[in-house]
């Protein structure tokens, strides 16, 4: 619960170190008491023994969170790469596998965060898990867009996380900052997807992605200045604009050269629209 406060208080009351989970449970049941004042005659060493234990537990927990975050990152990236394997003919199988893989990321790795991020640790350790959560949001929103064509909103993604926690634990909920940062990364992946789809001849799909990314960019431009400590977001917004422009330019190229596109009969080869020269003079 009140990790640092409760833990330190418990040390003043009982010299023997407790494992963290027991501390949290104890605190949840007992009402908060004022910390007993340490007598000024107490040795500096005793006080620092307490500080040592506090820092040890905090840092060990932080390490566990970082490890979970890294695993979430790697496996979410695999989901994203799976989605990129979409082509005209295999959409459903590819997406089904991606959704399944995402579910296993949720069950196996995101679940590790539930226990660790109880109470105030949720914000205190944000730097430790934020990259993982952002990647996870990126993967989840990408899957959702490809399946349903819509944006997976924060409440929806948090609803999928509710089953991870049992009632005694506060449910793990992604905070709005990590969600928005993950959304910004999503636009980069969508740009790659759009370019890929164009090469496959799916202009309509690419245009749909273009509109979607443009909407996200527009809305985030208004939100970004209001975010806490938004230096990360500012860089992402710059990259996002580049992505939007890349998609727009690609759609433009296809649109302008559309009349030059001649599909070889019976062939499912990509048309190399962006590279090829017209077969005949206009």
């Amino acid at each position, binding site marked *: *619960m*009140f990790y*640092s*406060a*409760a833990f*330190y*208080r418990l040390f*003043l009351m009982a010299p023997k170190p407790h494992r963290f989970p027991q501390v949290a449970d104890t605190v949840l049941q007992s009402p*908060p*008491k*004022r*910390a*007993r*004042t*340490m007598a*000024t*005659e*107490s*040795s*500096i*060493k005793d*006080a*620092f*023994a307490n*500080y*040592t234990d*506090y*820092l*040890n537990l905090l*840092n060990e927990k*932080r390490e566990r969170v970082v490890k979970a975050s890294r695993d979430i990152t790697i496996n979410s990236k695999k989901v994203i790469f799976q989605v990129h394997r979409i082509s005209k003919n295999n959409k459903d199988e590819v997406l089904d596998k991606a959704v399944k893989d995402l579910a296993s990321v949720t069950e196996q790795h995101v679940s590790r965060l539930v226990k660790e991020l109880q*109470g*105030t640790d*949720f*914000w*205190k350790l944000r730097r430790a898990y934020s990259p993982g959560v952002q990647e996870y949001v990126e993967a989840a929103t990408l899957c959702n867009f490809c399946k349903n064509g819509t944006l997976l909103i924060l409440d929806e993604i948090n609803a999928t996380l509710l089953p991870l926690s049992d009632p005694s634990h*506060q*449910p793990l*909920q992604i*905070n*709005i900052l990590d969600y928005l940062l993950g959304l910004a990364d999503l636009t980069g992946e969508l740009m790659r997807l759009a370019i890929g789809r164009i090469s496959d001849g799916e202009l309509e799909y690419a245009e749909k992605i273009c509109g979607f990314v443009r909407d996200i960019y527009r809305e985030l431009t208004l939100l970004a200045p209001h975010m*806490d*400590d938004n230096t990360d977001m500012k860089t992402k917004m710059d990259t996002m604009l580049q992505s939007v422009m890349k998609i727009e330019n690609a759609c433009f190229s296809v649109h302008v050269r559309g009349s030059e596109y001649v599909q070889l009969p019976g062939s499912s080869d990509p048309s190399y629209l962006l590279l090829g020269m017209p077969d005949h003079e206009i």
Partner: protein
Amino acid sequence: MKEEKEVLEKASSQIAVLKKLYNQLGVVLQECPGSITVSYKRTEILVLVFRYHGEWRSETQTAVSLLTFMHWLETGNLLMHTEAEQKLGLNASDFGLDIEDYLIGVCFMSNELPRYVVNQVTAGDYDCPRKVLKFLTDLHAAFRMLNLRNDFLRKKFDGMKYDLRRVEEVYYDVKIRGLADKAEEVSYDIKIGGPDDHGDPAGDEGTHKQS
């Protein structure tokens, strides 16, 4: 000596101002809407204390460094975490003093000691180096008990040994020139975690010398 008292009193009066300001900060946080749904009964302020902690982190560290320095000047002892917390009107159950902020503040205080000792000697207080050296040695030994990551706290702690070295040099300079008053000269002993370690500031009781 009288001047020192006046200076300390004047500085002390600012502590009340600080306390009021932290209280105001607490009120502001209480009025903020929380950003995650709180379905468990607990003070929402705590969530915000940690969410926005970065906003007042360095200021708190500075405040702690000044409070610990003042406390040492007044009593010769190290201000403990809970004592510092109380002085600022913070309390562990909701808006508390972060332990890492406290420890970093103590390191900042140690940075001030070499300068203090140099100026005290210039002003004629030749016993000061001995007292500061004992205190800083004990403090450094205590910090060595901590397991630190390679973060800001670690960096500040690494700086402490240079402060300690400079104070040692001042102590040495004063001692070899026989400037320290013979009557007040006592053997320089430090206790390292022994059973009779009562935090004696004057260092008059000792069990073993520092090697």
